[in-house]
């Protein structure tokens, strides 16, 4: 059952179509990530859902109720939708407590108690309540922004790149905290980000956007392993894309014959392998022979450039990543083996 339903959403800025024909479903309690390169229209899509802007065409339904459609537009402040913006957007002139209680009606009982509860919920203590936003670190600001958005008990939470302003080390921890808090509150969540790793680890459903359109949607695992197009494949992680001839359920390429994951009537196709599918062995073991032409050290892993030349006369260059502990030097002869199956791109 879908909780949030977007159908045929369009939004133009002058001649530019920022969002053109978006359909998206999100089930209750799910975490959806919308991911895409900057300028792909994902922030516009978020602003349409939040109600900051009306769509030019299409409808937005939340739990069966139409929020936007033909001749119908519920403004942002009447939508039960929370938002955590990129850098928190805390009110600089209000204390943390006043920021959090901003969305709670003035007359409401237990206002102070709710605020204290919320601040604990996001992992801060009550000593923070009297502080000012500028006295907090970036991570603390984001926690307050989350508490503020939760105060109104929203039914849908929108996260607009909320982790991108944080240090890399803090990002993963914050992601975990936020996911935990939202899960506990049972709030359906939509995360918008340009960071595929963040999207893959945060969401249980994701959509890759480009040029105002959704290229593909599905579970993170599905999208990573079985992307439909080269663009999606490359956007979601390092990809080795090779031309191949298809026959008997196998793809024949410079790495030999690799089983394919679906039946195809095509004769030739591009196949996708992820670098982690490729194993490296010593020169005298099984597999396809290759020569390391360059090895670049970068801490835990090395980037290897290898030249493949098998007996069939096909040759090619691959870029692989290998743990630096036992990475071969340039000039070493190695053998490559492929585990799992190859995915056929369209």
């Amino acid at each position, binding site marked *: 059952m879908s909780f949030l339903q977007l159908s045929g959403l369009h939004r133009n800025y002058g001649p530019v179509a920022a969002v053109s024909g978006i359909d998206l479903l999100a089930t209750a309690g799910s975490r959806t990530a919308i991911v895409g390169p900057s300028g792909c229209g994902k922030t516009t899509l978020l602003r349409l859902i939040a109600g900051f802007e009306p769509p030019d065409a299409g409808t937005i339904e939340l739990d069966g109720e139409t929020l936007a459609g033909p001749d119908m537009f519920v403004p942002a*402040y009447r939508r039960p939708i929370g938002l955590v913006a990129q850098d928190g957007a*805390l*009110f*600089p*002139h209000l204390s943390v407590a006043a920021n959090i209680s*901003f969305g709670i009606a003035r007359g409401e009982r237990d206002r102070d108690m709710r605020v204290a509860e919320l601040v604990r919920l996001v992992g801060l203590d009550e000593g923070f309540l009297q502080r000012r*936003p500028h006295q907090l670190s970036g991570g603390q600001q984001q926690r307050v922004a989350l508490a*503020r*958005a939760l105060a109104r008990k929203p039914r849908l939470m929108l996260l607009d790149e909320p982790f991108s302003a944080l240090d890399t080390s803090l990002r993963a921890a914050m992601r975990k905290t936020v996911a935990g808090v939202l899960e506990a509150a049972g709030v359906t969540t939509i995360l918008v980000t340009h960071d595929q790793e963040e999207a893959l680890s945060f969401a249980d459903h994701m959509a890759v956007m480009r040029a105002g359109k959704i290229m593909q949607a599905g579970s993170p695992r599905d999208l990573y392993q079985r992307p439909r197009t080269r663009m999606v494949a490359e956007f979601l992680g390092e990809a080795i894309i090779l031309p191949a001839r298809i026959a008997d359920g196998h793809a024949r390429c410079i790495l030999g014959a690799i089983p394919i994951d679906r039946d195809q009537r095509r004769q030739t196709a591009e196949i996708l392998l992820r670098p982690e599918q490729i194993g490296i062995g010593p020169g005298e073991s099984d597999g396809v022979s290759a020569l390391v032409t360059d090895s670049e050290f970068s801490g835990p892993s090395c980037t290897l450039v290898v030249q493949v030349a098998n007996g069939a006369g096909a040759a090619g260059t691959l870029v692989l990543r290998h743990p630096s502990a036992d990475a071969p030097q340039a000039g070493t002869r190695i053998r490559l083996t492929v585990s799992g199956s190859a995915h056929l791109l369209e």
Partner: protein
Amino acid sequence: MRAATDSTLIARPAAALPAAAPFHFSWIGLAALLVTLLTLVPLGFILWVTLQTGWQTALSLIFRPRVGELLVNTLLLELLTVPACVVLSVALAWLTERSDLAGARLWAWLCVAPLAVPAFIHSYAWVTIIPGLEGLGAGVLVSVLAYFPFLYLPVSATLRRLDPALEDAAAALGHGPWSVFFRVILPQLRLALCGGALLVGLHLLAEYGLFVFVRFDTFTTAIVDQFQSTFNGPAATMLAGVLVTCCFALLALEMLARGDERYARVGAGAARNPAKAKLDRAALPCQLMLGAVAALSLGVPFYTIARWLWAGGLAVWRMDEIGAAFGHTTVLALGGALLATLAAIPMAWLSVRAPGRLQRMLEGCNYMVGSLPGVVVALALVTLTVRYLLPFYQTLATILVAYVLMFLPRAIISLRAPIAQAPPELEQAAMNLGRRPFNALWSTTVRLSAPGAAAGMALVALGILNELTATQMLAPSGTRTLALGFWAHSGEIDYAAAAPYALIMVAASLPLTWLLYVQSKKMAGQ
């Protein structure tokens, strides 16, 4: 060799500071201190006269019904004018900056343009159109029209650079447009409102010509009357003392209202451009309102000047007289502007490069004195020169000093931003290449701040062009500036003969006002 030894000796105790800082400080700090001492002369003078007069006499001069009347007048004027200016300027700024109003840029410029019309010319225009206009109501009406741009400028600049993410956040938290305006937008305008309101309030205290036309008595008009009848008796000085107290009360009030909240955007990255509100059916009434404001604040003065020029014909253009006035004004405006800018350099440099307690104290003094009405400064300098430096009485030097005292803050503020943008490494590099400290400062930072200095000079010149009270009391006898010429003719009810002067003043002010407008745009990064 000697210079090198000196600077190492001086630099040693403060090893943590950049080596150049202490050495600079001694010279520039001294210069700033001297300028500040000079600016304190008017205040010292009032205290000194009070002491000389004796407390008994002083108290009897201060606590009398006339002073009470003036105080009530001043209070009513401030209480009615400042809130009216606030409401008007916030409404205009919102319409021109945050709504989809047609022709918003033109309207924005028309909201600043009334500054090009000196306050007393506003009043001259209104008295021409409605001859019976006088008293408190008239004073409030003309003051609002003449001074609301002082609030419009900072408010519109602030509105333009507010981070719309905060408004989005408030809307997402369930607040409707009105609630967002009062709880998120208005609090963020607080500093702009406080600063602008202070400026309007101080102008109301200092203005002379405007209130003489509409026959409304304030401290300033009373002091000038007193001065004209008894020269520089203690009565005038005691009135000046009360006026100064009013000024300081306003400063203190503004400091209280300003608070110590922080309004700067928290977080990294650049703010998105704010969305424009759709006016729809309100568009026509809004256009009409802006049209009405422009008609009252610009149409009335321009219409009046045109009407008198038409009525006067060619006869009012007495070119010898007008030419002389133009010449005098140019000399005074350029001289004053140059001197004020030179005097501002040390203070501006200190406040950017070596901020500290001394610098804050000095700057506070400059700021306070800059808020004093011209009549107080003039009264102090008249008494001082008459009693102790008679050769300087009513000389060019004295009037220029008065202008420096009055307009120093304008020059400092205009210099501060460009100095802050000039990297200090350049000064150090110049010294490294063998320039002496002052020379190094002059050939790098001062040269780089030339555009800011020019803007500051323009602002000071604008002030001098429209200055009436101090010029009247201090300028060498025979001096006839445009403002004095206008005043003399209109004082004889020869409004037609005054019109050419008014026209030239407005025409000369317009480019300077345009500069102000452009500066405020730049402040908002546009």
